């Protein structure tokens, strides 16, 4: 069974805060789900390429030129942010 420390480590990586109860539930869920995933060890993939796209298509490219967006959308995007000032989104300090 996956340990509490391993669950806490994953939660830290994912920037999730878990209660002790949640950690315990995840230990159980993880173990049963990862156990289910074990069925894949029966699959022989030695000569198989990973599928990165459903259909055989080409990369979509265009000239690297800025295209002006809708100015009204820009206003709405700013208004959706928790804090903004002079056209910038205000974010918490990264370094303290």
């Amino acid at each position, binding site marked *: 069974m996956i340990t509490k420390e391993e669950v806490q480590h*994953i939660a830290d990586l994912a920037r*999730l805060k878990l209660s002790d109860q949640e950690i315990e539930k995840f230990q159980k869920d993880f173990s049963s789900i990862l156990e289910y995933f074990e069925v894949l060890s029966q699959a022989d993939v030695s000569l198989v390429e990973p*599928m990165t796209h459903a*259909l055989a298509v080409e990369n979509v490219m265009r000239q690297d030129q800025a295209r002006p967006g809708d100015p009204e959308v820009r206003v709405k995007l700013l208004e959706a942010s928790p804090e903004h000032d002079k056209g910038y*989104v205000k974010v918490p300090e990264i370094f303290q």
Partner: protein
Amino acid sequence: MNIDSLTISRIREGLEKKEFSASELAKDFLAVMEKGKDLNAFTVVTESLAVQQAKAIDEKIAHKEKLPALAGVPCAVKDAILVSGERCTASSKVLEQYVASYDATVVKKLKDAGALIVGKTNMDEFGMGASTENSAFGVTKNPHDTSRVAGGSSGGSAVAVAANQSVVSLGEDTGGSIRLPAAFCGVVGLKPTYGAVSRHGVIALASSLDQVGPFAKTVDDAKTVFEAIRGKDAFDATSLEVQDSQAMDVSELRVGIPKEYFAEGLDPEVEKVVRGGIAKLEKAGAKIVEVTLPHTKFALATYYIVNMSEASANLARYDGIRYGLSKREGDLLHVYLDSRGELGPEVKRRIMLGTYTLSAGYYDAYYTKALKIRTLLRQDFETAFEKVDVIAGPVSPFLPFKIGERVEDPLAMYLVDIYTVPVNLAGLPGLSVPVGSVGNPSAGSGQGLPVGIQFIGRPFQENTLFEAGRVIER
């Protein structure tokens, strides 16, 4: 007008003959939605938008202008798809107050087609679930038996059509999220070929699997909506423009029945109804052929590894920085932890598992391996499609289950999608069509629980699926 019998073409006829106006349609459907709100199909009612759109259609009629394809058709939209100026919650507390800054491409196309957008529908939070029980805003009930689930994750969109609260609706399907609720609610649901419909403005769950598609009461209505929303979009590099495929006549159709889809675990009553549908196809002239999809037993595990891995990356953006729930006391780490704290348990579970499967030391064992099995699954289908033109089978091994029956056991819930996930993994189109019902012991009145038949086609062969669906409908 008889609301229950309205289809896209019936609405067109009624508007042109002036039997009713688009404004009357909007008013009547909004009233039905209000009366039926116990079903909890909607998270947001977009009344002023629908009324305004209806007025515009009525003006077009007054000026004898040509009406667009979906003129006056009440349409509900899954709350993972952005409608500008309206809340878009993904049924999550983390987006409860978020207002969409722009229209998704599919919404822009609905608006251009003259549809009346009546509301945003309830779903499993961020698309994670098969029953709509994982919504932060309550479960959506199955109108055939309100003690049972509507299926998920697009439960609200399926119920909106099944309960005549809208005529058509849009859902989104990553592993069965359109096809399953369509089957559970007795309506038609299409998951298009991957790339047929733009994902721009659609809240992403698993980017290599997600596709937007229609719910409707008839195959023809599903086709009309699909044609209105599909197409290459500069904002979605995975979208493709494809020529319309010539539909095969049913007498030329070779229908493949995969033996792996009729094995242990399938409810015998569901099997009986589905086989009845297959018999209907045979009677109409189709040739029935047994096929094998040998890697089917790996599909569910493969699906969940891909789904959870991609979801963990796609949900990293809900961090309280640019939009959504933001709790800004404390340092940067605590802004992240506190803002993400309101995510539901299934969401947290999948982010955690996806983070694990993508982490150093595990990436190849899980995600890369899953991508290799996707290749094998796609090859299974390609081999089968050398012998047949369409594959038929059940949508789900189970009948609509009771609310609360599976939600505590994640694996029990995952099993519901066992026949739908291979289709997303291979990028193929899949159509769910109501094929009959099974007597419901808890209903008492003899009203049955709906069963759906699934048709799977070659890429961009939706027209062949529709042809098979029409035979079932007759």
